């Protein structure tokens, strides 16, 4: 199973923010859409980083001015990206081993979606459930 099966059910919205926008704007977006991370893209739509709620919380713990910062100052810029044809199992393993929860998906240099560890685990679980269900119907 490939990552594109997850992207197919995620509509057409990929929430992004630019590096020069403020953390305040980022927090508003995270809250409004009830999500955990924003992909940071430049004017050309190229992925330049990712900003997660954790990044914000960690800074807020010792910096009252966190809201006024630019996204650029807080984002993780060494962002791992995936492609739609990445293997679901491999992605699950990599996200678990390397402790990241959001994976921007890029195709030919353009951001086409984002998958979360929750999406990946659910897809894998559904796959197992399906296989078990198949076997059940064949033996009963």
């Amino acid at each position, binding site marked *: 199973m*490939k990552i594109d099966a997850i992207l*197919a059910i995620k509509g*057409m919205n990929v929430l992004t923010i630019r590096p020069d926008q403020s953390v305040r704007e980022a927090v508003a977006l995270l809250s409004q859409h009830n999500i955990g991370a924003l992909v940071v893209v430049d004017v050309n739509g190229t992925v330049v980083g990712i900003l997660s709620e954790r990044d914000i919380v960690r800074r807020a713990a010792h910096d009252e001015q966190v809201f006024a910062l630019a996204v650029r100052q807080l984002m993780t810029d060494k962002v791992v990206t995936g492609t739609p044809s990445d*293997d679901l199992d491999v992605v699950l*393993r990599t996200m678990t081993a390397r402790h990241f929860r959001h994976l921007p998906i890029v195709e030919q240099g353009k951001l086409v979606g984002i998958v979360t560890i929750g999406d990946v685990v659910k897809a894998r679980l559904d796959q197992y459930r399906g296989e078990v269900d198949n076997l059940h119907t*064949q033996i009963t």
Partner: protein
Amino acid sequence: MTLLGTDSNPLRVAVIGSGPSAFYAVEALFKQAALVAQVDMFDRLPTPYGLVRYGVAPDHPKIKSVTKVYEKLAANPRFRFYGNVELGKHVTVADLRQFYHQILYATGAQSDRRMGIPGEDLGGSHPATEFVAWYNGHPDYRDHHFDLSVERVAVVGVGNVAIDVARILSRTPQELEKTDMADYAIDALRNSKIKEVYLLGRRGPAQAAFTNPEVKELAEMEDADVFTLPDEVQLDELSKAEMASDPDPTIQKKVEMLQGYALHQPSGKARKLYIRFLVSPTELVGDARGNVVKMRIVHNTLVKSDTGTLSAKATDQTEELEVGMVFRSVGYRGAPLPDVPFNDRWGVILNEHGRVIDPNTKQPRVGEYTSGWIKRGPSGVIGTNKPDSVDTVNGMIEDLQKGATLSPTQTNTASVEQFICNHQPRFITFADWLKLDQLEVANGAKLGRPRLKFTNVEEMLKAVGK
């Protein structure tokens, strides 16, 4: 007005399509506690069950036994089937809005992806799905012609469709006669001159999508030997490292079996099936009449992506395969439905977790949903559609509770049937289908076969007096 979804005011749902995802959605609806739902299921074909009837390989009867579950669901008095009724032709989305609170699209993924190489449209080059639909007796494909007088065939891809096609081409007529394969297909395959079948995977044995039982089954064919090439089934360093860091016994077993095929000695069986790895077709070459005579392939090496996925990268090593027929099975996509938003990038109905999305407002279209392969693309096994349909139905129930449904003007069950009568008097009910089913089984029994399929819509309609 009484509450929607109760005895006096049932939730009326139209389901478009009658394959696994459609039936699993019906199951999820009927399982809702304290919900009274009436479901009308539409299919453009007279027969239900979609890919279970027209996709699952005829030599895999156990997989088809899932239809027993669907048959039980269809016995619910609040379920009706309208076969031979096509969306966009006999009934439109606008019509459905007059009769139903919710509409669910579950039409599957019918069209194939192209390889995108020169010569792809030469004679003898076909989508594997068309061959599958043909041998399974799909009315739209029964008159297709496949030239089985060639000696060598390439099947591109190593998913379950590709392996089904390679296996069917390698089977003997005696093996096929035990199945419910369309009789014309058995006749054609009886005269097949095919001697060699190549199954081509662009990555290595550890990445192949086919399952272990599918690999094992190949060795059990009556009159075909299976081979792999030693160099292609030896694991490369990246695959080795991946398997060492996270050992998966299923993949290990698969690789061992495939490596075992490299040691096979020809046993004198009439046909040979070669499973090739790390190769991609680059061009099909035709003769003067425009028929495929040769396939150029390039050997690949594996490279590791950011996320750890091993993908194929072409080397400069090339090869030519003399083949007279090519089946491509390199992915599938759904076909757009009239007046339903489509996401062309993924080949699915534009949706968010099963809610159909309006491309302009980017908001859900009230009362419209999707499930199965037309929702998420073709992935997983038949059973994978069950949790998928449950997710969609959960959304439908959530929206119902919020009051976000369509507002049909005609909600009695007779009015929709009258409408269908007016637009397609020759519709097929589930009782009609059960009759057809019985006839097929009885006709098959006379020949010692599990079923003899009707493959022509007119014949189906006549058989049930329509």
